[in-house]
């Protein structure tokens, strides 16, 4: 979580460092130090943080056992939904938080991923046959991620030179274009409002589902451990994808590309004057952000077992943006907290109302969601006025050249979104 040792102590040195490495292979430039072992990097990581992270992981991995013991399998489905939105928000965080470009149409990539996965799944299952059925989901998931990334690349081509607020409107328009096109069943691909898969088709089971159900469930007995249901399966699947996403996104931020994002976000003109390839940095932000949208979309489609165009509304794009903005632009812990708060709170209230107040589920759910959105809107307004950097601000990437104190007034007036936290760069 702390700044890596790669980031030198001041901005100039950071750029020199980059200039020296200028000839590094593009794979390294893009994926940074993903390959390095994840725990060896943080030499100055506090043991407390490591312990807390480990504790959180143990808690998350043990949660289904506890919830099933309580007979709360439905909460697991809610947790899957939260996890998917957090993955989406992590992808959006690359675009908004790291690269400083606003995107109002995140659902476009989510929709592309979901539909790509489901459209590809059935022919692929026929091609592979029964014995290789388990391979369908991973293959389709990667394909969905790549297709969404390709769409992100296509979108990035024309919008490269657009100003920030125009970019936001264009992404909004793009998101709506994708949704309306899906609704209208282009080339007979999406089956319009009825959704996919068509009657009579069933999606292949994701890998090891049957194996896990037969072995873990039957071998250990009904009440010894936990029942391997769809919800439990998807809980673990999304949890693992989330962890992978966090590791990859964090390492990208610490890579050379991440540094050029930060430089571009703070001042695009200065960054390009210092030799940052702004076009390339923007394109990669779009592509990598869209990739996670596609991955989350594939999981979403398979988790539901079918899909219609409704979930991909503009409102949901706004909610993903709110997760990033309220949690903290450019801050992974911020996005996690924002996602859990914004997506988790209404689920919790609904669960409480259903189980302890004896209310009907549907009404409560929509009402709570409406109240949530009401407060979300208000919170966005207040947050922008009072605390632009979000609940958990991002760590400043560059140390100041002189002094460790407060940042100068006007230091970040030209910064786009997510200016560095007001507390200065003294970490």
């Amino acid at each position, binding site marked *: 979580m702390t700044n890596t040792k790669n980031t030198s102590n001041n901005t100039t040195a950071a750029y020199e460092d980059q200039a020296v490495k200028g000839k590094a292979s593009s794979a390294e430039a893009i994926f940074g130090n993903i390959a390095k072992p994840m725990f060896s990097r943080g030499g100055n990581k506090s043991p407390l943080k490591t312990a807390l992270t480990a504790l959180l992981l143990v808690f998350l991995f043990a949660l289904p056992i506890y919830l099933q013991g309580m007979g709360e399998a439905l909460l697991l489905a809610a947790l899957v939904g939260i996890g998917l939105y957090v993955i989406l928000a992590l992808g959006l965080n690359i675009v908004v938080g790291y690269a400083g470009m606003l995107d109002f149409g995140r659902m476009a990539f989510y929709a592309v991923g979901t539909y790509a996965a489901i459209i590809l799944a059935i022919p692929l299952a026929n091609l592979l046959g029964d014995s290789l059925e388990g391979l369908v989901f991973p293959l389709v998931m990667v394909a969905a991620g790549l297709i969404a990334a390709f769409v992100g690349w296509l979108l990035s081509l024309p919008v490269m030179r657009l100003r920030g607020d*125009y970019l*936001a*409107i*264009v992404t909004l*328009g793009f998101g709506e274009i994708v949704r*309306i096109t899906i609704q209208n069943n282009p080339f007979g691909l999406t089956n319009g409002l009825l959704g996919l898969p068509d009657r009579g088709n069933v999606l292949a089971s994701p890998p090891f589902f049957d194996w896990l159900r037969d072995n873990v469930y039957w071998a250990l007995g009904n009440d010894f451990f936990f029942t391997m249901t769809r919800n439990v399966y998807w809980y673990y699947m999304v949890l693992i994808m989330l962890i992978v996403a966090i590791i990859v996104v964090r390492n990208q931020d610490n890579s050379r590309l991440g540094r050029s994002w930060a430089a571009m976000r703070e001042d695009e003109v200065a960054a390009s004057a210092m030799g940052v390839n702004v076009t390339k940095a923007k394109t990669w932000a779009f592509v990598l952000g869209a990739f996670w949208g596609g991955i989350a979309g594939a999981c979403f489609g398979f988790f539901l077992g079918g899909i219609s165009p409704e979930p991909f509304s503009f409102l949901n794009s706004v909610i993903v943006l709110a997760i990033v903005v309220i949690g903290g632009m450019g801050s992974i812990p911020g996005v996690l907290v924002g996602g859990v708060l914004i997506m988790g709170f209404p689920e919790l209230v609904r669960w409480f109302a259903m189980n302890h107040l004896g209310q009907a589920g549907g009404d409560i759910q929509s009402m709570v969601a409406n109240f949530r959105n009401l407060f979300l809107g208000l919170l*966005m307004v207040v947050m*922008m*006025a009072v605390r632009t950097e979000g609940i958990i601000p991002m760590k400043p990437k560059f140390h100041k050249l002189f002094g460790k104190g407060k940042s100068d007034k006007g230091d970040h007036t030209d910064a786009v979104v997510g*200016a560095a936290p007001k507390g200065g760069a003294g970490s």
Partner: protein
Amino acid sequence: MEFFVQLLIDGLTLGGMYALIALGFTLVYGILLMINFAHAEMFMTGGFIGYGVLNLLGSESTIATVSDTLPFMSFLQSTQPFFTTTAVGFILMMLLTFGISAVLTGLLGITIERFAYRPLRNSPRLCALISALGMSLFLQNFVLLAVGHRMVFPTPEFLANLDAVPLFGAIRIAPIDLIIFITCLVLLFTLDRFVSKTKLGKAMRATSQDKDAAGLMGININSVIALTFFIGPALGAVAGTFFGLKYGVVTFNMGLFPGIKAFTAAVLGGIGNLRGAMLGGFLIGVLEALASGYISIAYRDVITFAILILILIFRPGGLLGESVVEKV
């Protein structure tokens, strides 16, 4: 040919409403350089207020309910037949409906500017955009929770009894379309005169040219901005009420699409340029009507959004605007 003219009439009516909304976008952009995303919600709020006033003046059941709880309102029971059946009453009722809706929405606009945008006036542009988005989300859900998600707009009896006006051949124009078109033209003309001839209009133009210099010349910037945030939403409210009268229904999320289209109109005409917004509004309205008539109804919104994206990319200055130079 008749089909074409009919589409043209539809498009001009629709375009008038888009022009009214687009003016709000372009006024605010001209002065604050900010996309007031919540402006679409002004259109929606105006529609809902218009719905309320029209029911209060013309609907027997609403008046009865209101009189039960607020006895002093019972005088409305005696005025109701006058408003709904006679021509003078109908005109008076329309004026009251539009006036109240415009004034209340305008005051709402001023309030929003004061509390949501003024603290951000010196922040980066995108912060203001996020704040406006949040405000839009808030207003939508507030109306949804306080009123309802879909309200059937009452059609005044007098209006329902009017016959369509024959133009030539078999082409007829619905009275509501005629009212919308004429009102839009009158409002657009008045606003244009107001901005170019009056002292307040001059202050607005000065502020949009250079806020600081205008302040040094003795113009109260805050009140000029407040005025802008009154006029824009007031015009949006008129459009919202017309929308309700024409389509017979108002919904809490009805602002989004007309909002984006009006923004497209504002950009098409050159954002910050009043006459450009009017021209753009009519152009977008006609284009949309023709697209839904000749290409595909299902894809008509896609076509408008595609136009938006193409203009923003290839001609961000619009038709009448100057080319925008990004200063370092």
